[in-house]
């Protein structure tokens, strides 16, 4: 199997979704529990692949370095954001390469981002809260031409759900359920 992706199954799934769009609806969820300080534990909720439930028994912890009042017990939320972004682009890149018949030898994506914490702190400046920009470099070795890889890069970003969530406005709706402790 090229790149260890079964092209036949990928093709069959795409054609199935084309015929039956509900098979292409993916529903995800996670739960985050505050543990202590800046550390929180994330657990995956069951996922829906089309109308079919999949058990997702995964969990991980996020923390901040000691310099940011944490204990450095895990990647911090910004690193996890970049990880989610880059891993998604990686799937799109590898799937696209496989569909084109490109054999990959190695793919690395190196991400960097700088943000100004004055935004988080609310210090009155013009600094935004989030990343003003995110930079990455894809380092790929495979039997595609430089032109093919450049085009693949463009399509991977265009079709990556996480990349498109970051570059486009997204509605963030939430509510809070609170209970006041009385003593």
């Amino acid at each position: 199997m090229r790149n260890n992706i079964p092209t036949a199954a990928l093709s069959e799934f795409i054609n199935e979704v084309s015929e039956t769009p509900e098979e292409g609806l993916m529903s995800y969820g996670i739960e985050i529990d505050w543990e202590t300080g800046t550390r929180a534990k994330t657990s995956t909720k069951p996922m829906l692949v089309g109308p079919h439930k999949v058990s997702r028994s995964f969990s991980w912890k996020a923390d901040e370095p000691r310099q940011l009042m944490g204990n450095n017990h895990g990647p911090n939320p910004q690193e996890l954001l970049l990880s989610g972004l880059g891993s998604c682009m990686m799937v799109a890149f590898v799937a696209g390469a496989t569909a084109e018949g490109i054999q990959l030898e190695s793919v690395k994506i190196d991400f960097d981002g700088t943000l100004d914490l004055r935004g988080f702190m609310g210090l009155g400046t013009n600094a935004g809260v989030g990343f003003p920009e995110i930079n990455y470099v894809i380092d790929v070795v495979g039997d595609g031409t430089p032109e093919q890889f450049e085009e693949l890069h463009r399509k991977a970003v265009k079709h990556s759900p996480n990349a498109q969530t970051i570059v486009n406005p997204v509605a963030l709706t939430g509510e809070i359920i609170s209970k006041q402790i009385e003593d």
Partner: protein
Amino acid sequence: MSKKRLYGDANSKSASRNVGGWIKDLDRARQSGPFLEAHPMDAMGMSTKAVHAGTHDDARTGAVGTPIYQTSTFILHEETYESIEEGFGRDRFIYTRYGNPSQWAVQEKLASLEGAESALVFSSGMAAISAAVLAMVDVGAHVVAASDLYGGTYNLFNQEFPSLGMSATLIDSYDIEAIEAAILPNTQILYFETITNPVLKVVDIPALVDIARRHNLRLIVDSTFAPPPVMKPLELGVDLVVHSASKYLNGHSDLIAGAVCGSRKLIDMIWPRLLNYGGQLDPHAAFLLERGLKTLDIRMKAHEKSATALAEFLETHPAVDKVVYPMLPSHPDHARAKELMKMGTGNVTFFVKGGDQAALKLMDHLHLPKQATSLGGIESLISLPFNSSQSTMTSRQRADIGIHTGCVRLSVGIEDADDLIADFDQALNAIYQMKGAA
């Protein structure tokens, strides 16, 4: 000698490549098979399918019937290399652990009989069940299954599941409300038997299909007790049907085999489990199973005929407390049986007066039925749950699932009904007189 090689399913081809395209341009769509797409028999009757579906005469010699392809491996060439590269090795002959024409013949026949898009054969019913179940669950998964499952399946859920980080809740297959209430956020499948063993409950499959759909679950049923002439669970909306093919499907008590039938999508998900767990059916056994399957429909008619006559006779005998046969009006699920079952089977369970000791004596007085476990063979088989299939349970636990003392599990073969009735009459009279004398 023909040089033309049959490398697999010629209808199965690589997705075309589109340099500069995106994944949406991949044009390979799923199809029934392997082979089924090229040999549609949907309009044919059960017996015609049993004889002809999947059976391909030898093109080189004209020998009628599927040759026994007793080989471990196949000569590789362009079409096979390509299938490995592209991820559709299931549609090519590469190595017998992956697939073999003798296996394909049975798979095509079974898929045709069950009305499935695809099927796989295995070296035992438990190999089929374990591969099918484990293909449909992920780590952390939970299963809701019947509380009176076949012992082997019970052991899979009870012994293996916890070691794999998974769990199962077992519920009375009559209690539809409790089954739904047992579903957890991580539940992935419902697993039930269409007709239970040995008390022959006819399970409300449409109700289970409804629950599975509403909760986004897959429903797997073991239909060993209801082969295709009796019930086609896929038509009722079940996702996967598993069988111990050692029983009715083969029908001659001379091999161990299993099968899974369903959509091409799900069977393709099970195929890698077959490869990884290694429960392939040997080509010689596949030949025997194919041969047995050819007479499935007429065997089932003979089983039903003799079983119905014998069950009706047993109901009238004073030494018999109760007879359980779904096609008798006295069966608690008779109405559902008439709705879901196209015909009866050979399985008759009955309770003799005088309890397990009387049942033991009965078996000693019988001449025709063999005292042996299993079912679905052409010869009648008789056993007592208390000292065989359910011997690890206490009498109280057995009673809880309807196995009261004196319970006799009988698989009526295809012997003439008159001979079976005469044999049971003399044996029952013998124990009844002994009881009277005492």
